[in-house]
């Protein structure tokens, strides 16, 4: 029997928080935390979380034979990437010089040391850790009911730089603007942790579990060269 929502487990994340938050917003759904490609392939929706370092994540994904099923899911069903699950969608990460999944064109870079100070000249810490404002760059069903500029919980030292500005769904400042959410067809991925962002985060997860991206809006249509 196929599950409603598969949370991909590749041994690199604290998945308990993610699955608990999803169960909270979708009490009737069957949720599986799984590393089984068949379960992921058959699931109605896929959540792709992640923590740790990019090279380790890519190694663990491949060690479990998950690369193709993740790429397929990102193109075919409601798909939510979180944190490292956003970063490895891109082509390359500066972290450990890692080649990533390449589903979206662009790169992942570290917050540059020389830029990390505020207007008063005071040092800004890395990781970027805590609650920051998220600006909605485009209207999207996953932002429904969430106030523009709402604060979400972040913890990361790297950020994504998409080649195509059209995929940018949200951005934050630290201290410069950086992309914190991308949307392409049935894919939505965020740098912050909705599962740890209180009511705003639960709202986003609730929007995801009921989201029905139109069949015509495939990831390829939205992201241009990404699926050539």
């Amino acid at each position, binding site marked *: 029997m196929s599950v409603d929502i598969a949370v991909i487990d590749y041994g690199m994340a604290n998945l308990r*928080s993610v699955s*608990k938050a999803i169960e909270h917003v979708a009490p009737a759904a069957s949720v599986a935390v799984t590393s089984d490609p068949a379960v992921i392939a058959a699931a109605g929706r896929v959540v792709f979380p992640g923590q740790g370092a990019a090279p380790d994540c890519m190694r663990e994904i491949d060690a479990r034979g998950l690369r193709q099923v993740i790429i397929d899911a990102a193109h075919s069903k409601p798909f939510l990437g979180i944190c490292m699950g956003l970063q490895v969608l891109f082509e390359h990460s500066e972290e450990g010089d890692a080649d990533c999944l390449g589903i979206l064109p662009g790169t992942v870079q570290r917050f540059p040391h020389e830029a990390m100070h*505020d207007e008063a000249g005071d040092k800004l810490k*890395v990781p970027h850790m805590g609650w920051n404002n998220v600006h909605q760059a485009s209207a999207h069903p996953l932002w429904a009911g969430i106030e523009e500029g709402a604060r979400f919980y972040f913890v990361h030292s790297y950020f994504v730089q998409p080649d195509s500005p059209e995929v940018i769904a949200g951005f934050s*400042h630290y201290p410069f603007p950086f992309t914190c959410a991308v949307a392409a067809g049935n894919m939505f991925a965020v740098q912050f942790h909705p599962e740890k962002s209180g009511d705003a985060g639960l709202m986003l997860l609730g929007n995801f579990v009921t989201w029905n991206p139109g069949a015509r809006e495939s990831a390829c249509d939205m992201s241009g060269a990404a699926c050539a």
Partner: protein
Amino acid sequence: MNWQVACSGYDVLAKRIIPCLDVTNGRVVKGTNFVELKDAGDPVEIARRYNEEGADELTFLDITASSDNRDLILHIIEAVASEVFIPLTVGGGVRVVADIQRLLNAGADKVSINTSAVNNPQLVKDASDRYGNQCIVVAIDAKRRGDHWEVFTHGGRTATGLDAIEWAKKMEAFGAGELLLTSMDRDGTKSGFDLELTRAISDAVDIPIIASGGVGTLQHLVDGVKQGRADAVLAASIFHFSEHAIEDAKRYMKRHGIEVRL
């Protein structure tokens, strides 16, 4: 794209307020110097209330002395994580990587390591490599020694001979994602953070610092951020037994020019 929307304003990462719950035998307790512990209530209930009041994170410190009741903290974290969706940190009695795994599995987002980091710094490195530095907090208990500060372990009872600033830098290099800094001189005194210590450590490292020890008034929280340059402030007693304390604290900080999540 409308980058202009945000660029015209000025977004700042919010300074965090973190209530700390000392837990033993399944209950939150309050006391000074681990004596005359007073029951402060059910951890799940208190966590729920702090979340509603706007706490940015919650820290649970397991002060259970015997190992018999260690599993109680896991049940508490499981229960809290099922209904409170903000970051949860757990510390106390973490000795090996398996302890960290158990806490994360129960629903903790970060694990705080103190004595074991001193006894075995490699634990911090191994844990950070395995689970990511975002979930490894190193707790440093420091006491003033003339012109510097010395690291203490075992709840402040054991001197280590380590210099607190050098130790903070080493723990950053070993993969700590954050430091929880407690002044043993100020802890329980309600006379405010050791601002000099907080600032010295905050300036010495690039990772966030949580200031702890000595909070007695809301102004102390402001001082910790403004003068101590703390990224987050942790307090226990001023939040227990009082109504809407966290929201009051945030409004007070906001009035004093500190960005908070309201």
